[in-house]
């Protein structure tokens, strides 16, 4: 039996979530192509340089917030249902929350796209970070609130499912997939408090004219309180796939269940008290707080380094089960022609590179060299743009057949797709990193300044531009291939053999080896909250004690030209 037959209600919700995620991926990806060609000066006929920022806002919001949130909602709905072996308690209610997320998405997207249509009276060219005092139309902030609250309510459904299961199984270990979903969502509740306060108490009333000013540094700090953990909200679902599905796709089983639990507990504890590492170069924040955040950030490397070990060990185990031998020759025995496997493995490889550039970002003083340069998007296109996005695409090849009951079509296209993405991202990201090292700024429609020479690096600016434009084009091609495969699969007929199934073999070292305390989620949430109070208590008090709205900035609507 496949998932869609066992749990039809959960499968339906997962399908809807995936559908919105793929639509956002298509539009956001098209925007990415426009940016790559515009920035590099290869082709500037799509939009004016002023409207570039509308496209950039759309790219960030649709991919980083909408695509990720919807996809992981589907993935986690599947994971919780499958691993607890029970359907969601109230599917109708979940549909309401889904509608809320969708309404928020449409509201935010329409407001952003209004920037491209002069006759539409609303704009939101404030980018994905929406720093005050640049101000968007109130509908943009309302859309954000609906997205955040919708994600809370969907998460609550998974928690309710878990509690029902717990009542019936008081002494069992939490199944690994559900454990991972719970850890991720607790982290999410804790960290979205920052952005919820920022939008609900400051930006929304300010955009409606209810309050006259906001403190740009306070709202920015609240944003980054959320802005780093959101990165882990994107990554933890990819880890969920790498830990629980990738070992099976490799032909083996997970190396260690206890280590997987430890890693997710570490993410819950350390994801939030690190936000100041995005504000190393901000005035108004004492350096001691920055140093504390830097230390926490460095320790946040630990769960990712542990993951690298476990994932590679699990893959090696799988390869040896398939007859692989030798020190490295076992790599050849992995199923590189299976797009679900190849995509996840390539995503993991790129994540390793992204991890190293992230260590540079985290290094408080070396950060001066690369802060707000093209290095930074070069970095996060390896992390969220590949570790997360390519893993999500890859696992769709495995999961979509199970939630639709339809066989994967265009398998040949699917087989080459992860490699096209890998090649495109390799070209684009290496050039972005190197351009950042010589000071080319990010978030700029035309980084070709008169009288400014970006020099002194291997290659040259011209060569980097070619790589960025070519890489961006290949990425879009890979995206189109993916959407083609999904479309063909979705429109295909049901029936026949799926060639995939959702059974997951037990880990080599199972949950019986994991200390019981790891499953004490209340304890870990309390410790996480304590760490947040330590990292954020004093600095937030310092920013708020001179008046919540002071020093106060009047709004600068994005439609206003100086």
């Amino acid at each position, binding site marked *: 039996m496949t998932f869609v037959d066992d749990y039809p209600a959960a499968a339906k919700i997962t399908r809807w979530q995936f559908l919105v995620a793929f639509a956002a991926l298509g539009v956001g990806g098209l925007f990415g192509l426009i940016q790559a060609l515009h920035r590099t000066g290869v082709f500037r006929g799509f939009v004016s340089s002023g409207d570039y920022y509308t496209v950039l806002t759309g790219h960030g919001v649709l991919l980083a917030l909408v695509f990720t949130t919807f996809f992981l909602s589907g993935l986690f709905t599947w994971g919780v249902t499958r691993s607890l072996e029970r359907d969601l308690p109230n599917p109708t209610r979940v549909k309401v929350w889904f509608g809320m997320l969708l309404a928020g998405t449409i509201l935010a997207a329409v407001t952003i796209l209004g920037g491209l249509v002069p006759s539409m009276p609303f704009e939101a060219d404030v980018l994905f970070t929406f720093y005050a005092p640049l101000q968007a139309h109130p509908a943009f902030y309302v859309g954000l609130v609906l997205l955040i609250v919708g994600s809370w309510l969907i998460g609550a459904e998974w928690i309710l499912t878990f509690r029902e299961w717990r009542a019936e199984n008081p002494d069992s270990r939490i199944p690994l997939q559900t454990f991972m979903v719970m850890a991720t969502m607790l982290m999410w509740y804790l960290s979205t408090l920052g952005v919820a306060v920022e939008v609900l108490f400051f930006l929304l009333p300010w955009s409606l004219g209810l309050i006259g000013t906001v403190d740009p540094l306070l709202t920015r700090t609240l944003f980054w309180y959320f802005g780093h953990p959101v990165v882990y909200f994107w990554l933890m679902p990819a880890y969920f796939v790498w830990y629980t599905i990738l070992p099976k796709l490799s032909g083996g089983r997970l190396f260690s269940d206890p280590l997987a639990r430890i890693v997710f507990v570490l993410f819950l504890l350390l994801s939030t008290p690190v936000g100041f590492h995005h504000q190393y170069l901000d005035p*108004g924040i004492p350096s001691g707080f920055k140093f504390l955040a830097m230390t926490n950030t460095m320790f946040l490397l*630990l769960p990712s380094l542990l993951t690298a070990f476990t994932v590679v060990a699990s893959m090696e185990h799988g390869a040896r089960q398939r007859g692989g031998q030798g020190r490295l020759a076992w790599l050849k025995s992995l199923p590189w022609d299976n797009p679900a496997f190849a995509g996840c493995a390539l995503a993991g490889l790129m994540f390793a590179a992204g991890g190293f550039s992230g260590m540079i970002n985290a290094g408080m003083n070396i950060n001066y060299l690369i802060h707000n340069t093209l290095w930074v998007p070069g970095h996060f296109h390896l992390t969220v743009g590949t570790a997360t996005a390519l893993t999500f695409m890859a696992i769709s090849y495995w999961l979509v057949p199970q939630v639709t009951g339809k066989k994967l079509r265009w398998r040949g296209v699917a087989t080459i797709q992860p490699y096209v993405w890998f090649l495109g991202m390799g070209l684009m990201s290496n050039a972005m990193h190197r351009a950042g090292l010589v000071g080319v700024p990010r978030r700029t429609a035309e980084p070709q*300044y008169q009288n400014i020479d970006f020099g002194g690096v291997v290659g040259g600016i011209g060569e980097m531009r070619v790589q960025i434009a070519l890489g961006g084009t290949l990425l879009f091609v890979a995206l189109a291939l993916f959407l083609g495969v999904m479309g063909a699969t979705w429109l295909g007929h049901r029936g026949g053999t799926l060639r995939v199934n959702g059974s997951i073999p037990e880990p080599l070292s199972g949950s019986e080896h994991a200390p019981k305390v790891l499953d004490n989620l209340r304890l870990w949430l309390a410790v996480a909250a304590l760490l947040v109070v330590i990292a954020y208590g004093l600095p937030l008090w310092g920013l708020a004690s*001179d008046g919540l709205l002071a020093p106060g*900035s009047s709004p600068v609507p994005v439609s206003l*030209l100086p």
Partner: protein
Amino acid sequence: MEIHRFEKGWLFASVLLIVGFVATVTYGGVVGGVQMVDDAGGQVFADDPVNSPNFEDPGVYRSGPGEYDVYVVAKRFAFEPGSESPIRVPAGSNVTFYVASADVVHGFEVVGTNVNAMAIPGQIARLEVRFDEAAEYGIVCNEYCGAAHHTMAGQLHVVPQDEFDGGNVTEAP
């Protein structure tokens, strides 16, 4: 709980790497003297930095022998001074930048150097820099600030000491 011996080794190496990173940053700060932009610059009126008590008119000030203070206002879409005419300081001097924004969040990046800070309305970013050699640098705004953000740039000229006429310099008050 059982941890494989390879994994123990990996764990040990990972922790060593992390401690090493924290140690290098600490070394850079304590021994190398790399200071972070912080709250030392103080605050200004968010909408009107120039008329704030602790901010001077935009320009270059001599505060001592070989010591200069540069007050820069970032405003959509120019640096004052910097965009209309270059900021000029002599080589071999210690320069303290005080950067404030008059409207939205901007960046102040001297291209190809470590001089890089955010200009956030209401706050002064204070940066101490030593320029040993004569050179011409570009300045770019590296934070999105509006539809013409990509035009916001300027110049910093570090001129040889014997060519520096000090014509743009005011004595510090």
